[in-house]
């Protein structure tokens, strides 16, 4: 479904990604773990064309999207709930969801809205409220719900558990699992919360300073001593 090969990305002179290869198959949950600053967020953003890959190719469902403008990529079926949630704080919850539906047909809107409200009932209660007044967990749910409004086939999630209470994290991961299983949405999940994320994943990659250092099934990486030492012990 998504094939990333030999991708390099630069911020000015700094090389943040130095030849990344990642393959995501339809229907999978693929997790990417790695230390802070490894380049995980840069990879997700590069898939969406901002920043653009300076070398390498990104193919989505057979189409080369490496040079496509960011605003056209979501229309192909890739949505992202980016790092830091980036909800529109001065807009209502409803307007945030409308923004998520930018590229879909208007007649789908009501149906899609019911669908994300069923996944995150709290958002329904809060729909008229300014998004900036939501709690951290609710903002994360809104960020994911907004991404889902575009009817993605591939959902990119960047550290959805960051800074959230364990109970909320559990709820969010449960929803991720649900949309993957019930709606067949493929998920590419970036996490520092490696334990949960690896348990959830069909397959996983480890990134170290702009390169993929290891890959395997979620279970394999969970039992790998190096991974345990670096990402699970103490941190988890």
């Amino acid at each position: 479904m998504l094939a990333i090969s030999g991708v390099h990305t630069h911020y000015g002179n700094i090389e943040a990604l130095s030849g990344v290869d990642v393959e995501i198959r339809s229907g999978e949950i693929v997790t990417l773990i790695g230390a802070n600053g490894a380049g995980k967020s840069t990879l997700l953003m590069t898939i969406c064309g901002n920043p653009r890959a300076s070398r390498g190719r990104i193919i989505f469902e057979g189409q080369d999207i490496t040079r496509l403008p960011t605003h056209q990529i979501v229309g192909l079926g890739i949505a992202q709930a980016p790092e830091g949630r980036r909800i529109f704080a001065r807009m209502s919850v409803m307007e945030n969801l409308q923004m998520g539906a930018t590229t879909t047909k208007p007649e789908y809107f009501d149906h899609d809205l019911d669908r994300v409200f069923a996944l995150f009932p709290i958002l329904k209660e809060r729909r008229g409220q300014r998004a900036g007044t939501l709690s951290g967990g609710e903002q994360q749910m809104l960020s994911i719900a907004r991404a889902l409004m575009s009817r993605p086939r591939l959902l990119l999630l960047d550290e959805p558990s960051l800074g959230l209470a364990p109970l909320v994290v559990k709820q969010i991961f449960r929803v991720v699992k649900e949309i993957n299983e019930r709606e067949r949405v493929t998920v590419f999940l970036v996490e520092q919360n490696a334990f949960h994320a690896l348990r959830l994943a069909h397959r996983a990659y480890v990134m170290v300073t702009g390169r993929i250092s290891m890959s395997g099934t979620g279970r394999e990486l969970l039992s790998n001593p190096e991974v345990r030492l670096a990402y699970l012990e103490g941190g988890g």
Partner: protein
Amino acid sequence: MEYFVQQLINGLTLGAIYGLIAIGYTMVYGIIGMINFAHGEVFMIGAFISLICVMVLGMFGLTWVPLALLVTLIVTMALTAVYGWTLERIAYRPLRGSPRLAALITAIGMSIFLQNYVQLLQGARVKPLQPLISGGFEIMRREGFVVSLSYLQLFIWILTLVLMTIFTLIITRTALGRAQRACEQDMGMASLLGINVDRTISLTFVMGAALAAVAGLIFLINYGVIDFYIGFLAGIKAFTAAVLGGIGSLPGAMLGGLLIGLIEAFWSGYFTVEYKDVASFSILVLVLIFRPTGLLGKPDIEKV
């Protein structure tokens, strides 16, 4: 009392002009963080297009004022919008992402260029227009002092009110307005959701220019004379209005315009006409000292 009411009426008319221009400053600032110093010139071009349009319509024998005004309004808004669009496209877009100073200098350059362009095309002489709307109501009279509200002023108020209402509805209720507000808050996120940011910015310039064009038309029919230099002072006053109301805030721009218009009218009425500009700018300085975000501007407390 009568004098007060008369200055109030004059101030509201002036405020309509400043408010309509100020919206363009505040919108552009809100979305790309840039002061479009050429916006005053866009207003001036609007005034010239109105004048040419009225005269051309007159040549073709269209002299029935309501229709002539309506056609002029539409033509002026459309053509001035093209100027706004072109300005952004050729002068500002190539500089997006470069240091603010570069954009600022370009804006000042465009302002000078547009002034000279109109001066060359239209000449430096003042252009007159015979009054289109005359007559009015007498609202008060005492000891020989007559307070009048002209039909012209009434027309200006209604036109401004209608346009500001339509404009507010576009910003608050439509997908375009939502996209503009989203770009204002987080352009990168808006593009991740499929918003064409360049197009949204273009449309922001188009809307700002169309409203400035209406201010130009109002200026023309209210004062009856224009020249290539009117954009300078009106532009600075409108910019002051935008800052006074809180730059980036749309209701702020409208309120700021109104206040600057009133301050100017009352100052000229009660003190000296010579220092009316100083009065507006002094108020601005005071506001910036005691309330740097402007009257309706809000510090971004919610931005986590």
